């Protein structure tokens, strides 16, 4: 994980004053740890310990009921790697991540660029695009189950008007993952939109003033100033979005309850089902770690890409 941690350290503050006397230094140490203690205790209890314990569990045949719990070595991992359901769930998750990240970044960018032009009705635009993000997954799931209802839903009503359909959005296993993507884009694009809006506010006005003096029109300014200035924000947004999309569970689970989940079961759902429905905590922990490995690979890949970019500029 060294690649992940390099950047913040090199930027860590160097402005702190050097300790003058050993006594003052000890006191400073004590005060520092007092400030850190509440967070660190929670960090160890609810993150570090579960992470370590989960790794241990993944090598046992622990069940939810307390039975089992003996060491089985790599058996769970061997089983996971030959488990076609696990691979399908992983594939579904990756497909969802690829298909959802693209619109979630591009649409957010377009929204932010348009809103940032200072058109009248700022609060309304912001509210319209961000509001769905405020809704609980239960709520958005019910809204979209209803919109995607093949008989009475709004989606087929609209498509019917232009002569398409009817589509069995959630029932058709070839379509339902894309239905989940549509609902997810609607639900969460507002977060990326706000991040882009904040990034746009950070571009100094002088850049545009200078460009205007040089006779650059709005398109030229967009291509030569705005978009290049947004590159660091975009890298970060894409990264956050990929990590968020990989965690797909809530909306897929709730919108597809009782429907054919075999082709649309995300990996998080398989973790949940193995542990809390199949009662196999050890196996579930092992799948969690396979999933975690995927996240680390993606994370390391992104960090290396970012670091390369930084060293180039």
């Amino acid at each position: 994980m060294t690649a992940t941690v390099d950047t913040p350290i090199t930027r860590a503050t160097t402005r702190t004053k050097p300790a003058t006397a050993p006594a003052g230094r000890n006191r400073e140490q004590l005060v520092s740890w007092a400030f850190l203690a509440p967070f660190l205790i929670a960090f160890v209890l609810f993150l570090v310990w579960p992470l370590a314990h989960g790794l241990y569990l993944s090598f046992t045949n622990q069940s939810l009921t307390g039975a089992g719990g003996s060491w089985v070595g790599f058996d769970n991992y061997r089983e996971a790697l030959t488990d076609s359901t696990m691979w399908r769930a992983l594939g579904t998750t990756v497909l969802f991540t690829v298909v959802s990240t693209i619109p979630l970044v591009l649409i957010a960018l377009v929204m932010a660029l348009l809103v940032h032009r200072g058109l009248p009705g700022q609060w309304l635009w912001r509210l319209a695009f961000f509001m769905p993000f405020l809704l609980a997954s239960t709520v958005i799931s019910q809204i979209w189950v209803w919109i995607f209802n093949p008989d009475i839903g709004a989606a087929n009503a609209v498509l019917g008007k232009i002569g398409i359909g009817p589509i069995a959005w959630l029932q058709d296993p070839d379509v339902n993952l894309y239905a989940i993507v549509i609902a997810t884009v609607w639900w969460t694009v507002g977060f990326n939109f706000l991040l882009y809006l904040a990034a746009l506010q950070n571009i100094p006005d002088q850049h545009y003033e200078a460009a205007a003096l040089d006779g650059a029109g709005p398109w030229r300014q967009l291509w030569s100033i705005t978009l290049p200035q947004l590159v660091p924000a975009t890298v970060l947004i894409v990264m956050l979005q990929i990590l968020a999309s990989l965690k797909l569970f809530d909306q897929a689970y709730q919108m597809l309850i009782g429907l054919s989940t075999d082709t649309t079961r995300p990996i998080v759902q398989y973790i949940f089902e193995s542990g809390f429905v199949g009662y196999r905590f050890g196996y579930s922990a092992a799948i969690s770690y396979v999933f975690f490995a995927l996240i680390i690979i993606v994370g390391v890949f992104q960090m290396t890409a970012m670091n390369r970019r930084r060293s180039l500029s």
Partner: protein
Amino acid sequence: MRPGEKRFGIGRVVAFAVLALMAIGWLMPFLWAIATAFKTEADAASDRTWIGSEGPTTDAFGAMLSNGNVWIWAFNSLWTSLVITLLTVAISALAAYAFSRMRFTGRRWLFAVIVAAIIIPPQVLIIPLFYEMLAFNMVDTPWGLMLPQIVAPAMVFILKQFFDGVPLELEDAARVDGAGRLRVFWSIVLPLSRPVMAAVAIFVFIGAWNNFLWPFLVINDTNLMTLPTGLQTVIDAHGIQYAQTMAQAVLAATPLIVVFLFFQRQIVKGIATTGFGGR
């Protein structure tokens, strides 16, 4: 309005039109949900018009609110989300301040570990966390629901970035006057950090208010459920009743929408002041 742009250019008109179309598209599902909430169940299940054949009615709201559980769930959602937000922001801000301003042994590697932990998805921890809650006797208790949610390494990182940008001189002056670290933090740094604290707090609150997976696993007692898990039990028990479900959706969303309307400027400003998108 950027310098060099004409006030009524054709570009502005086109931009406005595109924006309006997108906004309508984004609001439509929600407006449709509101319209459905005012229908009878029969109309909601069969009628595609905005106003059902039997005319608008508040029956669905009445039926939903007469279910006492909804009030309990709303109350649970509110207080647990507030406690989670308060604890998360408090412990993250204290830690971030220590990382930003104090010098102690192991600072660098400890901060590196916390930043690296940002990548850990909470979903990976559900099995061992559940196990831990069993051991602590916290399954089916509010503490079991709340405590695992207060660890947010990303918030420590964001807040440290912000504190790094606060001028040191202000604090030095106070310290020369004999103020302790906690006093400086409380009366100088915190007031300066209001926008970023508001942004962080609101995102933590939204996350806690809408969290589904963890409350779904750790809470079985109907009286301890929050809105997302509670509503799911109603749907599982009765099948989907569209009008009532949409009424619940509208009610569950209203408090957050009001909060966002009040703070939206601050939220964007708060994100911007963390140096987001800067080099």
